[in-house]
């Protein structure tokens, strides 16, 4: 029977999908690192943030509100980074043949939906911004990152479908 051999059609496709998962997982992982660098720049090198320390016309309550806002923003950004690391690491393991159940896949699907929805805001900003070049670069990076997530979702579903076919027929 073809499937019993090394090079049955489905086994070859499983290896191909595994390879795609590994590369896409690495891409999501490294985009997570990029997000971390961006977050650090946003939080600590942003002129607005630096400016807070120098503003003397804001009262203590207003300053506290500003600081708390940035703290919450920072927490959300770091959670985003951790989710990317989680998804990237899981996809690499999935590509190596380790199956961790459906939960990571569902997390990836939900995260992908959030990313796609966030594109609306990104596009809005793109249309309003004066600095087209830097926005365009950021947009392309975000788009690539989203594509990597799509590849992970599609390949992971396909792997589960094929494994079910290979080992039950």
């Amino acid at each position, binding site marked *: 029977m073809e499937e019993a051999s*090394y090079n049955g059609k489905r086994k070859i496709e499983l290896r*191909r999908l595994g390879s795609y998962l590994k590369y896409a997982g690495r891409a999501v992982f490294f985009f997570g690192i990029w997000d971390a660098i961006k977050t650090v720049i946003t939080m600590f090198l942003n002129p607005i943030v630096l400016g807070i320390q120098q503003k003397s016309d804001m009262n203590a309550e207003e300053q506290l509100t500003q600081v708390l806002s940035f703290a919450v923003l920072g927490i959300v950004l770091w959670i985003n980074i951790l989710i990317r690391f989680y998804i990237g690491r899981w996809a690499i393991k999935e590509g190596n043949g380790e199956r961790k159940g459906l939960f990571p896949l569902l997390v990836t699907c939900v995260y992908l939906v959030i990313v796609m929805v966030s594109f609306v805001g990104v596009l809005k900003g793109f249309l309003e911004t004066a600095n087209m070049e830097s926005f365009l670069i950021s947009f392309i990076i975000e788009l690539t990152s989203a594509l990597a997530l799509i590849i992970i979702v599609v390949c992971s579903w396909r792997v589960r479908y094929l494994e079910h076919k290979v080992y039950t027929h």
Partner: protein
Amino acid sequence: MQEDFHYYATYCAAWLAGYEVSDCSRIAYAAQLVDLCSKTFINRFHGPRAATTTQLKTELADAPTDITGIQDITRVWASFHFLPGNLYAHLPKRNRYYMNRYRLICDVNGTLLADTVNLARKGGVEACGIAMHILADTWAHRYFAGTPSFVINDAGGFYELRETENGVERIKVNFNHNPITADNIEKCSFTNCLKQDSETSVMNLGHGRAGSLPDYSFFKYEFQPAWGDYRILVKDNPSDYYRAFCQMVYAMKCLRSGEQEFETDTYDEETVSPYREEIMAILKKRQLIANEDWKALGEKLTGTALEDFDLLKYGDEYMEAEKGHKEKTFLGRFFVAALAQKSMVTNKIFRSGNLIAGFSIDYGTNGFRGIEDFRMLLEEMKKGAMDDQS
């Protein structure tokens, strides 16, 4: 393959094919010399540099990888160590650039192998030795191409298929890139070339990504070559090496007879079968090199002592010969045979519409328009034609 097979095993095969002991030595020497006849070696004797049959690591490190550099590298490696299996292979949905490299993949029993052995009929024992080296290497180096190409020669997923008391065990091969560390058979730890994404890097030449695994006669393994489209290939070296040995015996019988045309996919198992157990024991013995075992077999077969390989053995003869008589020395005939082989393979690659080995001119029919070194080959060919007529 290594010295154990190219020198000692070829000596044994030549004896079984019916050659005299002295001829066996010369054939074995020529077979091993193919792995050592670099530009550095030839320069030592002021020989024709176009007759190089290999490139040392130091030479490769300096070799350019522009178009002409790639052609130069390909001419050497595809002609002597990675003889293409099918220059007219076809794959759907691949562009010309890819196919030019795919068609150089070495494989056994190709038409070029028959051309190589039959070409050696016109030469002496030196040409026979070169042909035997190439024949043996088609078995060891199959599935890799003699041109730097990432999309062809990259490989991964190496697992040893080790026979144990409990059956066949699948053991992951660990590679490191430190050339100083020795390969460790028991831990399955070997050295290979660094992964280089650049298509034409010399790290992607031949079986660099597989390290020395193709050259270990005992090793049976599976791997995924880049050109395989996620297929797993199993390489059974003990079995392949035995077939190479049987094919060498058959080929040398053809060459010795002078009339019998070599045909591919033919093996003289009848002559070899009385020694099959001994040979398989040598091939399957887990050791990095089997010189001593093959040497012992060779001495047992011939009843005479077999000297170890000495690279400079025929150097003095060549140096002391007068100009115009150098072609009559051992090294001179070796150089002519190497030029003939390189010309033939380059011509075949060129005629298949592939420029990766450069241009080729039929100088025999269209007049001499080439580098000076090949004039020597043309003169020898003319002498051979006149001898045939007389």
